[in-house]
């Protein structure tokens, strides 16, 4: 029996059109828009100004707080401006715009493809390199990695869990990364183990990627277990993954390390490898461009700051009636209002849905079928939370753990009455969160 998490979950149609595809280098943009906030926490502070020349890997934004991350230039050229640009939500946020000239890298970066396995760095140095390289959670959460690797005093990690579940339908970035860079991923994992001082790591990966499991098992090294998991959404949710791997459930509001786990995405493990062994900052990432709305579903290695539009063109452009463009997967991704926005550190995919797949159906009365309850991986009662939000009954919402909702969308996905459960719950969660913070 394959391991899986123990509460709720759904199995959406996988639609992994680009599965196993080769990673292609995306075209260099003519102009890169690099945001100063591509991570959770405080935005970085710009350390370049208009007219400065930068290379690939030049530090252009400096981490500006405990939870913050460095930002590097992903291209070489001249800083055109430092100003607010529209991001994926449509808000203007401070960014550095670089007009690209050539492709010149900082000399400190080792650009060779050769595998480096050995390092004399100790835990502290590894974490420092990770911080310097501006690495953040690559699965989409974008929490600064070096912070996650330094648990608060009193808490001790026992195990590193590498999240290679890739449970979102359509997306196959992690899959291809593992196929092509299995050794690097494993070395990155070993570095993470060393950084937090544990001797055990588990790579959790959904069993629908058999070739990737094979590839990882071939390079398997001491202390790293490759663990196939049931293909079930949200297997890659941090709490769900820990439950699947360790049979331990994090309590409401607690950190993963409270049960001894530190979870890192497989893309993060690769970035850690590059940062520590190759001295390469986080300036590019793997992006799946897919869906029935694109000509050729593809997997790109794209520089941060490349526009979504140019990636779509790189994949052959739109096909059919253009409907939605989503940054991320269909369950948790964000629908874009414009394709003229740049790829950021957390962009795992661009999903193009044709019009036929883009509209929601009209919602009806709740028939109290409890299917949303059975689907919720956090053991919540989504229809009750929606009702509490609609009535503004914040106490009821709080008492029923609205704060624990992980935005996975399983409830809305399941509801036979097409009720927009998560839309409401999000609102309620924000409100209750504000109230709780106000009390403190």
């Amino acid at each position, binding site marked *: 029996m394959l391991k899986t998490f123990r509460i709720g979950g759904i199995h959406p149609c996988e639609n992994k059109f680009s599965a196993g595809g080769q990673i292609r280098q995306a075209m260099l943009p003519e102009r890169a828009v690099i945001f100063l906030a591509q991570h959770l926490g405080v935005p970085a502070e710009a350390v370049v100004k208009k007219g400065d020349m930068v290379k690939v890997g030049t530090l252009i934004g400096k981490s500006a707080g405990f939870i913050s991350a460095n930002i590097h230039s992903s291209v070489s050229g001249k800083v055109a401006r430092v100003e607010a640009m529209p991001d994926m939500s449509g808000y203007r946020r401070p960014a550095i715009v670089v007009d690209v000239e050539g492709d010149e890298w900082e000399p400190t970066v080792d650009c060779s493809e050769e595998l480096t396995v050995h390092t004399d760095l100790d835990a502290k140095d590894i974490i420092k390199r990770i911080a310097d390289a501006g690495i953040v959670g690559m699965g989409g959460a974008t929490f600064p990695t070096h912070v996650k690797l330094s648990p608060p005093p009193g808490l001790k990690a026992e195990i590193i869990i590498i999240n290679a579940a890739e449970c979102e339908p359509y997306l196959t970035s992690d899959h291809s990364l593992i196929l092509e860079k299995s050794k690097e991923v494993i070395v990155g994992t070993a570095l993470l183990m060393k950084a937090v001082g544990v001797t055990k790591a588990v790579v959790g990966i959904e069993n629908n990627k058999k070739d990737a499991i094979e590839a990882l098992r071939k390079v398997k090294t001491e202390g790293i277990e490759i663990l196939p998991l049931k293909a079930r959404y949200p297997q890659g949710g941090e709490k769900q993954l820990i439950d699947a791997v360790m049979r331990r459930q994090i309590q409401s509001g607690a950190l993963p390390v409270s049960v001894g786990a530190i979870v890192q995405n497989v893309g993060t493990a690769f970035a850690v490898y590059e940062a520590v062994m190759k001295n390469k900052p986080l300036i590019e990432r793997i992006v799946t461009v897919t869906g029935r709305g694109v000509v050729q579903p593809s997997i790109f290695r794209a520089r941060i700051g490349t526009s979504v539009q140019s990636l779509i063109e790189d994949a052959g452009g739109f096909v059919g009636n253009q409907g939605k463009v989503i940054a991320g997967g269909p369950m948790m991704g964000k629908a874009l209002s414009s394709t003229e926005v740049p790829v950021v550190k957390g962009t795992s995919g661009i999903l193009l*849905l044709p019009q036929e797949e883009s509209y929601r159906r009209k919602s009806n009365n709740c028939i109290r079928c409890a299917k949303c309850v059975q689907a919720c991986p956090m053991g919540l009662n989504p229809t009750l939370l929606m009702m509490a939000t609609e009535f503004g009954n914040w106490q009821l919402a709080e008492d029923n753990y609205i704060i624990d909702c992980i935005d996975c969308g399983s409830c809305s996905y399941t509801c036979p009455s097409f009720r927009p459960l998560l839309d409401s719950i999000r609102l309620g969660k924000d409100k209750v969160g504000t109230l709780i913070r106000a009390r403190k």
Partner: protein
Amino acid sequence: MKKELIVSPSPHIHGGDSVEKNMYGVLVALGPAFLLSLYYFGLGALTVTLVSVSACVLFEFLIRKYLMKQPLSISDGSAILTGVLLAFNLPSNLQVWIIIVGALFAVGVAKMPFGGLGNNIFNPALAGRVFLLISFPAQMTIWPVPGSFPPTYVDGETGATLLSLLNDGAGAKLPAYKDMLLGKMGGSLGEVSAIALVIGFAFMLFRKIITWHIPVSILVTVFVFTGIMYIVNPETYVNPVIHLLSGGLLLGAIFMATDYVTSPMSISGMIVFGVGIGLLTSVIRLFGAYPEGVSFAILIMNAVTPLINTYFKPKHFGSK
């Protein structure tokens, strides 16, 4: 650039389940029992079902359109389902006008005034049945005996159901187990064949229309409770297997108690609900005045459902 992009919050896909799919799924699951009832009760079964369904649909249509002035809801299938379930709980020789009264009560009193599908407290079909049972006790408790094929409607022999036989003292002329399984015994339309009902149950589980928790906890409870009584005093009480196979128990447990709207939301709540129905059914059957307790038991537990929902929450992630 191109046309505007469509923007909405996540999730961007839907599993494709719908209210209609579930309602029509339940109707399909009722198919085997319906076919058998046609076989046993012939024209009578057909007449009762057609009258009940048409009346429920018509009443829902009228109320929705003229009283509530809201968009029509007929296509969701719930009125048809209420009609079929009501019919399944009626004797096949019931007068047409009584059926219509039952339908009016089910839709016009138990369902629509609360706001239609999703808001009612009581299972409409059961409410209709119990209303008729109280108002027309004579007509509601005489059943035609399933005859030889082709059966006749008007002059079918009327006979007692298994349970009323039981109430008259154990061991009277009980039908053979085989006849109970296949439905060759007196009873309401849909309740006579255990096998047909269980096939429907399997279908609904397979299509994930319902989960097993409510029916199984009802059946286990009735079996255990009546089993204990049987062991204690086999003279007075009958074999628990007969309780499982007889009367509306299977119909109620599989199709009526699992009504989405009127049953609890969490797994633990469903089990409490099922055990409650099982206990009440056994008590009414063994000690009460009515031979048949399922309908009352379910309605009572329907009323308790909001309370169950308050105290039996889904198992929360991270709770002990």
